[in-house]
């Protein structure tokens, strides 16, 4: 379930904690395993992480279900993480989310037919100065408008071709 490469990466994190506290590395371990499993975690993957870190499966599941960044359903190649907290909301995020959904033909939480993109509503990403904004991968896109969204989404589609 966990590749040797991933295990090596997890071990780096385990080494940062005192001996016997390897379960402290659970968040990073889940992240690493998620990354190599098409960006989502299955029950088996969570159990595998728990086994590797010698902790109860349910304890790993508690972490995996608490944080927004872990996915439990298949996601697209790109996840658009749209902020809908107060600053973005006041600047029209809700309308832009509806626009984006229409453009992609899916609702938030769903994946486009070509498995390229899914949209997720998230809480504040700390970029209120550029509201409304969303995040794709490690990249923030700020001061969004319908035009800008067209440009970004079309760009993603073109890149994948």
């Amino acid at each position: 379930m966990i590749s040797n490469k991933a295990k090596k990466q997890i071990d780096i994190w385990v080494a940062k904690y005192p001996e016997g506290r390897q379960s402290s590395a659970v968040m990073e371990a889940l992240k690493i395993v998620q990354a190599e499993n098409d960006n989502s975690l299955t029950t088996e993957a969570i159990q595998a992480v728990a086994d590797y870190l010698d902790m109860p499966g349910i304890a790993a599941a508690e972490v995996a279900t608490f944080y927004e960044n872990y996915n439990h359903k298949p996601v697209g190649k790109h996840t658009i993480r749209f902020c809908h907290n107060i600053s973005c909301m006041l600047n029209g995020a809700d309308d832009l989310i509806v626009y984006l959904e229409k453009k992609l033909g899916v609702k938030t939480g769903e994946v486009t037919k070509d498995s390229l993109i899914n949209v997720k509503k998230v809480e504040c990403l700390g970029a209120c100065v550029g509201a409304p904004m969303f995040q794709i991968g490690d990249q923030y896109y700020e001061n969004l408008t319908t035009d800008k969204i067209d440009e970004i989404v079309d760009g993603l589609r073109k890149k994948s071709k």
Partner: protein
Amino acid sequence: MAKIEIEIDGKLVNARAGEMLIAVTDRESISVPRFCYHKKLSISANCRMCLVDVEGAPKPQPACSTPIADGMKIHTQNEKAKASQKAVMEFLLINHPLDCPICDQGGECELQDVAMDYGSDVSRFTEGKRIVADSDIGALIQTDMTRCIHCTRCVRFGAEIAGIMEMGGTGRGEDMKIEPFLTEGIQSELSGNMIDVCPVGALTSKPFRYELRSWQMNSMSNIARHDLVGSNIYTQTYKGKVKRIVARDNDDTNETWISDRDRFSYEGLAHENRLLAPQIKVEGEWKEVEWNVALDFATRGLGNSVLNNHQSDQLGALASNTATLEEFHLLQKILRELGSENIDHRLNVKNLNSPIALDSNVKLVNLENMDHALIIGSYTRLEQPMVNHRLRKASLKGATVDVINAMEFDFNYSINSENIIAPNKVVATLAGVLKVVLESKQQELPDYLTSVKTDDVITELAEKLLAEGQSVIVLGEHVINNDSAASIANLITNIAKQTKSSTLNLSASGNSMAANLSGFVPGKGGLDVNAMLESELKAYILLDVYPHYDFHHSIKAIDALNKDGAFIISLNSFKDKDVANYSDVMLPISCFYETSGSHVNIEGEIQSFTASVSAPSDTKPAWKVLKVLADLLELPGFHYADSAQVTSEITHQSHKSHVHDENIDLTTKQGIQIIWQKSPYAVDALSRHAISLQATKIGQMNSASMNKATAKKLEMTQGDEYLGVPAIISETVANNCVFVNANRSTQAGGQS
């Protein structure tokens, strides 16, 4: 800790610095509402119900996690405290369904009780409530998670007490729910305690579902007799039936927990398989008769077969380990008055040539203070759950635990060194340990040790026992399958003496300590169980014996008892095919909780109990049956008005402790060895008839485990039937061993 004085609601109270406030208010009987706090679990302070006003603190403080300091002034009843408590209550009720009329917890619900005091009459919440899907977590616990208030007591119970974290809080915010991760059902042998700790109706007893309201039942103190601890319980009864069992606090035995076996075995009482009327066999046909007819038939039968011919040495008495102290006493007294010493209860012990003589000399409460434990031949977790709980506590405090077993087991604490060896190597290993111990003390070696080999593992086992701190050597139930059992016990006695270790003898089960105390073992010139069966006695009195399950040599035993000519009186609670085959009279006796009597636990503590319900139908408590039988046999000294008089007779007579036969024999047999272990929920007739217990994972343990090499020798593959149970090939078993966990009737006992 320093003594300090604090003021609670204007009253000066003494306390120790650092105590949590709620512990002080509880001691002073000042009521503070709470949900997540439980005295035996860690503090989580997440329900916020116990908020109180501490003078000087800007905000109300949770009493469960506020350590007290000298001069603190606390108000639990003032406006600020009340307002906070009411506010928390309102929040807790937002998502609670308030379905008390159809909830099993209704009437004994902490949420309901606290809502009476702190809840508002009218809810201000008009939005929709959330619904949480239930998970099926097995045959014992019913879930209704919409009612859950996220106190996390069940989660903490699993992680801290049961040692297997099975429930957890997943999701967050409004989506948080308490659930198990995988839906295989809860595995813990202590799982029923989650029902007790749950303050609401989210986790309730499945067998008890929709049965009764708590106020309809009588709650009576009783003692569970399935293991060597004698857990304190309440039997809750309705119209003469035991409807539920819950834990009763006793810090000396079971603290506030009980095992699932103790909690759910009561279901067997109402099983259709109960023997309800006395029966006699006339010309091969069973006939239901009145008690006086049956007892008359029994007395005449004994007369004709042995007594009239002055052949009382042809009479034997056997009892299973479920009998009470009084029953053991009366039966041995009858035998001895009649002049027979053929008395035994050790039906499941393989080799009785010399007794397993090992005294337990450690209190259960002290077990948790041990620095080191050596467990030999036991899966304590399933065999003696409450003893294991203490060992686990010791382990959590830093004790090291070494194990010598024939198979790897899933202990719920960390094991320092797990030695998986065949039973015939145990005696040599222990001899090696004794040798290392003696050598380190520069003492002279007895002859039998000179040629004993030692190695690193053995040296390490010995060094752990020699190290500073308190050690305990635990001898477990698997030793009864061992030909060298007596030598093993004697070696342990010697090792313990040299290393100043305590000893704990878990080789017996149920109420067998009572059998020992009452002298229910062969006396001078008497035969032990194996000898009795071999010499084909002419008459037997069998007390609650189920040959398929109780005898080590079960097939041999059934054959011997079926031989023509023997007159057999059987006292049983449940019907049994074999009993019906070989008996001449069957007398229906009352079962657990239907009779008064006593249990003797591993500390030698006599715990007496009264009957919680009267005996059903035509059954009678065995002590009464035995008393009347003695009267009919015209024996002197059986004028008892109640079972307590029997008890006091036992406690007033002096008893010799074990007769130590110090012989140590290191020779062992070779070949495939079978360790035959009754599954935890098959230890007595009552648990075998408890349907819900049998439906659990532990209840369905039924397998013969062996490793690949052994399987090859026996020409077995996975799933083949071996001794009547399916074979499992697993490298966790020592070579040349088969570990049989028999749940139902097997042929295993007859072999090996």
